[in-house]
């Protein structure tokens, strides 16, 4: 499983690590029991301070995805889905609109985004 990080991007590296790992966890690319690289190893490979990676791991641990050992290792754990209080489609729509606006501001064309959204919708319906 490949994690892609771009330190030159406008998004903070910490956010990229959290988002990249969460996508892999939700998609099942990382399964319960899988080990993630140690904090120091990942920080070295990306070229950021150890705290950046440690904070990202801690956020995912708070969400229930990871178990962090005392030595800085992290392991994927089985996570029970949080029970939503009620459907919040307005909130979801707002977040998707914000993301689409951000991508368009960075040069993505509406047609390419629409194509990608259709592909993702199909994959979601099939899952």
């Amino acid at each position, binding site marked *: 499983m490949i994690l892609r990080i*771009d330190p030159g991007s406008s998004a903070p590296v910490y956010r990229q690590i959290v988002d990249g790992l969460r996508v892999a966890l939700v998609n099942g690319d990382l399964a319960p029991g899988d080990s993630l690289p140690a904090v120091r190893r990942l920080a070295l490979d990306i070229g950021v301070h150890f705290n950046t990676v440690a904070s990202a791991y801690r956020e995912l641990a708070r969400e229930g995805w990871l178990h962090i050992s005392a030595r800085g290792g992290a392991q994927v754990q089985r996570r029970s889905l949080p029970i939503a209080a009620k459907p919040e489609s307005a909130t979801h729509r707002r977040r998707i609109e914000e993301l689409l606006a951000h991508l368009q501001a960075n040069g993505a064309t509406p047609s390419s985004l629409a194509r990608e959204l259709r592909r993702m919708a199909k994959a979601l319906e099939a899952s």
Partner: protein
Amino acid sequence: MSAALFYISLLAISALLHLMPRITRPDLYFGVTVDPALRISASARRILQRYRFGVWCSTLAAVALQMALQRPAVSAVLYAVGIGGAQLAAHHSTLAHAIPRATAIEIDLSAPPEHFPGGFAAAALPFVLLLVLGTWSVSHVDRLPGRLPVHWSFAGPDHWVTTSPRLIVMLVLLHAISCLVLMAAAWGVLHGSRRICASGPAAAAERRFRRRTLLMLLTVAYFSILPPALALLQAPVIAMRLWSAALAIMLLGFIVTLLRAGQGGARLFASRPPVGDRTADDRWLGGFIYINRADPALLVEKRMGIGWTLNFGNPWSWLLIAMLVAMVPTGHYLLR
């Protein structure tokens, strides 16, 4: 004999420097991030020709000076200035062809973990052997000769010290420190340096290159504990000569293997690696010295030559240098 050794060393270093631009990563040329296609262009060949001309002119000048003056230190300084100048000039000419490095990084989360060859036991064994040797020698100090050799030349031992329990402890301690420095270097390569290629044959080649380097450092660490053992066990002079020859052959074998693999194993695979080595050009001084306080790496791949170099922006690197520099006067003081 020492003059012949001086000439052979100069020629060997010059031959290595002659080959050096061919063994770096294909997207780095004289310490600058470039398009790999640049290497086969006419301008790159011109830069290479001028660099090699500078290297061999410096070699000839150093040899001539040594023949005329018989002052190796003066010749060595002239040689260092000459080759340093040739490399800096080549680096400066290549800057005109620099391209932006790839900032996107890929990390293989399922990459197999890398371990020290032989694990903790292999790393600890030389220290245990030195401890056993020191303990045995101190408890049997009356059976040892009155003087112990602590330095050798080709002709045999050339520096002796009076045997005493203190001297034995110092001798063993010094070799334990040199062994520790080698182990620290191996640790730095394994845990303090960055993986450049994420997956596929490039990553496998990089792992193989790293493992060979670790094996070399571990073997040299084991070799480094033999001189005190030979001295304390009163081995004949031939044993030390055999040790020198075996060390030279072993090092030559490792160097040839690493040169054939190229920097980071770059010559072991055909696919194109990521552009650059994940360090910024503007953090390198002349393509030699890397200073980046924001980079947590202790060691980074050399841009010119083979192996790793220190990140001088990391405070630990200064501690390592201080240890290395302090070793020589400390050795002289302790073994006086």
